[in-house]
């Protein structure tokens, strides 16, 4: 099995004709200001794609036979044409999985979602109670998410997803999250915290400790068959047994991001010029960016293991996450900042210069806070 998996990973690393996993952030507007928001969302960007442009993107994706898209934001349900976009995707045979904080998921909208085909919904939650969740996602956000879950359940939506970003403060709640998901007949999804967007500022206080990483690894080995992870914890494979999934960085190879203004990036966690491949507004549209951009073609070349080449664990962890390295200022061909062997921590102690955030739609800090 491992032989077959290895060659599959090699095949995928050289890229596909179309992405498997395409994330499309519909808007930078958001009612929340989560401290770890990977897209630094808050305010709508005046240059966001129009409804007609969004339909055009969906037509291009259908042409490329993209099976499904992951819609996020910002809060995607804020867009007035949100349901029009869902309807157009369904008309073009594109499945939609969308991610929401639940604030706009009223009983009426839950019923509308429940009546649609090819649709998955995931509600974000980062704590099992308001005391754990709200410091990260904002006051009242726990209650909003639970109400949205109740509304989906009440509408008979079926198995929706509950999506957790694992932090230092909620590792101990993993069993509780699983129980909550089971209670709703929902599927639990747990993903890795990245230092992207506003996460660059909060990462040092939120990311799991090394001891907690071992706990996460053990927990995923025990529950991995029934929990989705976005394959985001492959850096933990250096601890021994490999987690289920493809266990590779898919950026620009099988994964990419379209931002609300149509810019295309290598993955949802690298909204930065360094990883910008082009725009859906360019001649040739998304297909040309995916197939021909220098950024993506470079990522599909064999990558150097660099400083990790001499470490016996490289085959297991693949050097970890590109975004995590980039936004903590570590070299891309070196250890992940959360390298379980400790190489990343050592590299961070030696000193690193995180890049400047170029795309930031955070709302201005209230004057009252500045005056304190």
């Amino acid at each position: 099995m491992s032989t077959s998996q290895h060659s599959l990973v090699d095949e995928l690393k050289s890229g596909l004709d179309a992405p498997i996993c395409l994330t499309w952030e519909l808007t930078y507007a958001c009612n929340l200001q989560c401290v770890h928001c990977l897209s630094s969302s808050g305010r709508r960007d005046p240059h966001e794609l129009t409804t007609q442009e969004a339909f055009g993107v969906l037509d291009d994706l259908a042409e490329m036979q993209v099976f499904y898209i992951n819609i996020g934001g910002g809060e995607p349900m804020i867009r007035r044409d949100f349901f029009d976009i869902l309807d157009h995707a369904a008309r073009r045979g594109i499945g939609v999985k969308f991610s929401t904080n639940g604030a706009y998921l009223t009983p009426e909208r839950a019923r509308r979602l429940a009546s649609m085909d090819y649709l998955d919904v995931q509600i974000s939650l980062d704590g099992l109670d308001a005391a754990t969740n709200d410091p990260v996602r904002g006051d009242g956000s726990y209650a909003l998410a639970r109400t949205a879950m109740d509304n989906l359940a009440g509408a008979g939506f079926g198995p929706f997803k509950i999506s957790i970003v694992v932090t230092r403060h909620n590792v101990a709640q993993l069993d509780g999250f699983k129980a909550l998901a089971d209670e709703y007949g929902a599927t639990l999804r747990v993903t890795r915290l990245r230092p992207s967007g506003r996460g660059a500022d909060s990462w040092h206080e939120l990311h799991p400790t090394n001891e907690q990483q071992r706990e996460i690894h053990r927990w995923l080995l025990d529950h991995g068959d029934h929990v989705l992870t976005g394959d985001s914890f492959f850096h933990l494979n250096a601890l021994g047994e490999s987690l289920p999934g493809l266990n590779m960085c898919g950026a620009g190879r099988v994964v990419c991001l379209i931002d609300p203004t149509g810019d295309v990036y290598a993955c949802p966690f690298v909204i930065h010029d360094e990883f910008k491949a082009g725009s859906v507004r360019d001649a040739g549209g998304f297909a040309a960016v995916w197939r021909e951009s220098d950024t993506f073609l470079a990522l599909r070349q064999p990558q150097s293991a660099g400083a990790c080449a001499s470490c016996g664990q490289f085959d297991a962890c693949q050097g970890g996450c590109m975004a995590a390295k980039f936004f903590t200022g570590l070299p891309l061909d070196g250890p992940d900042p959360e390298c379980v062997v400790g190489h990343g921590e050592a590299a961070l102690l030696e000193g690193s210069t995180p890049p400047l955030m170029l795309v930031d739609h955070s709302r201005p800090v209230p004057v009252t806070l500045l005056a304190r």
Partner: protein
Amino acid sequence: MEHRVVTLNPDVALRPEPFGALAYHYGNRRLVFLRHPDLVAVVYALDGHRTIAEVLDAEGIAPRRRASFVAALASMLDSEMLCERATRANHRDGAPLRSSGAVIGAPPVVPLSFVHTAEVHQ
């Protein structure tokens, strides 16, 4: 297995890729990698009329390769990528896909060189 009459599930889309093809099941959200162009040709040739043996003959699959093709098709039948002719008609009556026994979660990784079932994980 070889005497069975199967066809691509109508809920499944195939997309050509350099290594062969990707198959996606819109109902159970499973993604399967078909990792040889010959296997893709065989899957396209399954028409719901001929048996698997007849299709393998028609596609000129050499006897020594037959067992691996049959195993690959069996695993695709297990993951509902293929269906038997009789069930095809049942699928066509327009029941919403999500309520038709959707399996959300990680399907098993099939230990075959030809077919790889991946978690559709986002």
